[in-house]
């Protein structure tokens, strides 16, 4: 599985060196590299059934500081590596029409993917942080060079938010390393170092918020909608699909894994909030409801999806804060599910629709009658929308149900409040569907004539392939969730047990 990382970075390097004027070559090379990564991820995933934690590489990297080049994977990591593989292949498919500096595009793209694989496979806190930071810079360039609406603003905002978050993580990391005696930075060593409870109490929120910024936790989510909207399709897919998961993964693996006592009660409570756990759970609930409500009010198609991501990532964070088996299982499953569904939604909006209509405003999309002119887009969006609403049979349903059950066990108030978010979730998808694709007004003769002159380009094979890949994944997990849960459950159990010591 470690070859996913090496292949991605090698892919980035080779892409950068490919001749500038041969976009076709760059594309096929990128597809080959992404598929190779996915194949390894699938093989590694399949080999991981019934296995606990696998260690792939363990070499002393910086002996004087006890930093290990330690790559390992448990069930959670394997699921997320699989997700990254899927997202990277579909991202390449949906960037088939990038003509500007194609080789550079894929160079940054694979640098980002390599960093993401690295984070999910790191068994050393320091290495994890290194990969985490590696992923920041390519995002900036992907958005700033190939993006659309207010791209430089969106890109800089995203980069600075990410960097502020990672600075917080960095402080926590240094403090934990030094407090634990400056011997080793492996996650296992730090978790067993017996960090004092008073230390964990301040270090946990610092690190958790640092990672949660990237997971889109309210009120630090504002980079997400602007970044998603500004990004080119493939980058929005990756941002929503895997980069936000980096944050959530960090919250789980580092925040909860290393500082479990940071979640203990403070010993006093204020308005019913008596621990960091309550604080973050309520922030997650606010994120769920707020994201959904704001999505309902958008006039830009992509902003709807952008805010829906904030809402869905709220479920991940809520699931983490339940601290019980079913809730955390649900959170991990939701990471996968949202990665696939959000990728699909962004692909349809950004690639299939926007690249043909050159607008994302509902007011301008309504008179275009897209359900007739782009039936494939319309029905694909219906499919993705239903998955996003969380209807049974799709992955979102299983994941959100588990989160809500877990939340009920922890605090019924959380479940009740986030239920509102689900209902609003149905409404904003419905509204988007209607405004963008199925408007009521019948086309006038004038419009019909205009349509004859401006035929949209036909749907290309990479689009079919990408939609099919992502759609199949959400459906497969929805119908047979055990395929992921079998790996997630033991890993979560081990993590929670380790945290409870």
């Amino acid at each position, binding site marked *: 599985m470690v070859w996913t990382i090496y292949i991605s970075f090698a892919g980035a390097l080779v892409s*950068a060196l490919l001749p500038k004027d041969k976009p076709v070559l760059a594309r096929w090379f990128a597809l080959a590299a992404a598929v190779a990564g996915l194949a390894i991820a699938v093989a590694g995933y399949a080999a991981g059934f019934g296995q606990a934690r696998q260690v792939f590489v363990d070499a002393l*990297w*910086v*002996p*004087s*500081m006890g930093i290990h080049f330690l790559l390992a994977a448990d069930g959670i990591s394997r699921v997320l590596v699989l997700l990254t593989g899927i997202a990277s292949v579909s991202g390449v498919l949906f960037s088939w029409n990038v003509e500007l500096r194609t080789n*550079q595009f894929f160079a940054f793209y694979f640098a980002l993917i390599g960093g993401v694989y690295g984070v999910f496979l790191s068994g050393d806190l320091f290495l994890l*942080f*290194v990969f985490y*930071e*590696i992923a*920041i*810079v390519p995002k*900036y*360039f992907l958005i*700033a*060079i190939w993006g659309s609406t207010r791209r*430089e603003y969106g*890109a*800089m905002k995203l*980069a*600075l938010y990410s*960097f*502020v978050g*990672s*600075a917080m993580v*960095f*402080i926590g990391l*240094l*403090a934990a*390393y*030094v*407090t634990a005696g*400056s011997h080793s930075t492996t996650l296992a060593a730090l978790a067993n170092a017996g960090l004092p409870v008073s230390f964990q109490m301040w270090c946990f929120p610092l690190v958790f918020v640092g990672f949660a910024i990237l997971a889109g936790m309210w009120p630090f989510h504002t980079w997400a909608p602007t970044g998603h909207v500004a990004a080119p399709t493939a980058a929005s897919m990756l941002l929503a699909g895997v980069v936000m998961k980096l944050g959530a993964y960090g919250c789980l693996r580092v925040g909860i894994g290393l500082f479990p006592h940071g979640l203990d009660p403070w010993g006093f409570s204020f308005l019913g909030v008596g621990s960091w756990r309550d604080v973050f759970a309520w922030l997650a609930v606010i994120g769920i409801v707020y994201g959904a409500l704001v999505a309902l009010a958008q006039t830009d198609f992509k902003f709807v999806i952008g805010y829906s991501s904030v809402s869905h990532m709220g479920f991940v964070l809520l699931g983490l804060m339940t601290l019980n088996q079913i809730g955390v299982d649900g959170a991990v499953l939701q990471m996968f599910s949202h990665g696939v569904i959000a990728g699909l939604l962004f692909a349809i909006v950004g690639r299939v629709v926007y690249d043909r209509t050159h607008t994302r405003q509902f007011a301008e999309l309504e008179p275009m009658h897209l359900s007739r002119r782009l039936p494939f887009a319309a029905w694909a969006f219906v499919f993705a929308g239903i998955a996003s609403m969380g209807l049974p049979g799709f992955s979102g349903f299983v994941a959100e149900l588990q989160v809500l059950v877990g939340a009920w066990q922890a605090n019924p108030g959380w479940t009740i409040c986030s239920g509102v978010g689900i209902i609003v979730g149905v409404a904003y998808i419905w509204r988007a569907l209607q405004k963008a694709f199925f408007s009521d007004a019948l086309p006038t003769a004038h419009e019909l004539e205009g349509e004859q002159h401006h035929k949209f380009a036909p749907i290309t094979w990479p689009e079919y392939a990408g939609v099919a890949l992502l759609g199949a994944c959400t459906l497969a997990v929805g119908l047979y969730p055990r395929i992921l849960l079998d790996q997630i459950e033991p890993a979560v159990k081990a993590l929670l047990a380790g945290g409870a010591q």
Partner: protein
Amino acid sequence: MNYAFLFRATLPETALEIAALLVIVVDLGFLRKAAAATRVSVAALLGAAGCAASIWAVYAAGWGSLSNGSYFVLAAGGSAAVAQIAILILTALTLLLFIDTGFTRNPGEYVSVVLMAAAGGLIISAAQDLLVIFVGLELLSLGLYILTAFAKQSGKSAEAALKYYLFGGMSAAFLLFGFSYLYGLSGATSLPRVVYGTYQASAHGGTPLLMIALVMIAVGFGFKVAAVPFHFWAPDTYEGAPAPAAAFIASVSKVASFALLISISSVALHFLQDLHLTGVAVVVAFVHQPGTPLPPSPVLHGLRGAWPLILIVLSVASMILGNLAALAQSSVRRLLAYSAIAHAGYILLGLAFFSWTNASAQAILYYVLTYGLTTIGAFGVVGVVERAAGSDKLDSFLGLQKRNPLLAAVLLVLFLSLAGIPPLVGFWTKFNLFATVLDHGFKIPLSSMQSEALALVALAIAFSAVSLYYYLQVLKRAYVMPAADDSPIKVHPVTLAVLLLIAAAVVVMGCFPALLQNWIANFYA
């Protein structure tokens, strides 16, 4: 002590001086009629050869040190050797970058001044005596004033040199004044005896004279490392000086000055450790053995009391002002100057929490070496772009990735390293330095010092997050925004080779951080 011994101990400096004279003789004696390009190349290569010979001399000297009776005058080995080798390598690199510039018609004189200034740098890296320190500092500084003024056709160069000279002269006066108080307090010029003398003089409470002396000295050193509030010369000098001279000031002079601060801090600490003093307050904190009770009344004693406090004040001011002011710059050279001020702030933090194990010295040297290397590369790129575009404004970098992809890639690597993005070396140096500060801070058995160390490191990290913004402003123009002028930029092959070498070193040392750390650690064995 006889002259043969003196010669052997100062072999590295002597080698540089001989090379400097040789460059002048060859340039003025044999090449007066030769083409300008030949003269520049010959002078630069001879200078680089002189640096190589001097590096050999540092090794060959067998780390023999020069002493005056019982106390060292020039130290050898350890931090001094690391800093000297670094100074020589960085000097050679700036000389190679000189080959492709045409700002002067007197290449021989330029190179020989560079070499003499570098000799001053070698002296202060090793100096253990107040007078030798001052002589070395002046040798370095005078060279830098001349180098800043070397572009005779440029008004900016003259203005920058004059400002630099006036500030420098003033700060040297302060430094000398401070030294004279130290001499008055301790009756000695040798560092260990000065430390001992100041401790005795202030044994019954801090003396105002010592405080005045320390503040005066802080003015002098603060000027050398461009710490706020003694930084005013830096932006003007970085902007006005010819590019290779600016690179020299930003790298070699920085390394030498920090090496000097390291040796002063080490002397102060080793001295206290030798005496097994369980003094009070900060002194205690640094040498306190677990198990022994803390003395009741904390009074600041000796050189260790006020000094860290002064350094912390300078450090915090530099981090904040350097990073914030850099945000507002439109000239890349000024941006680099303010970023240099910010980096000096981080390093001063390492000096304020200086540990008597070699960890602090190594971490600071590691930081300043790689910082110097990166800055030379950055000035190399700026110099090339400046000659193609006519100015160093941010907009000169528009579309660099199209005009010269290699140059843009070098810029990307160097600036990301300055911002501290892994896996580049700038990240490791920051991590190493901050970890050392925290590690040392947490060992002090005073909880207020622990939280102070943590707060300061948090501040430093927060401001290095700010710094990403202005580094990205340059990279944004190079990579994102469209070019105003599409014509390709040509780079002299030697310059390109040096820049690629530096960028490759930044990447390799970042991926294998242990390489350089082990190399440094070897000198302390």
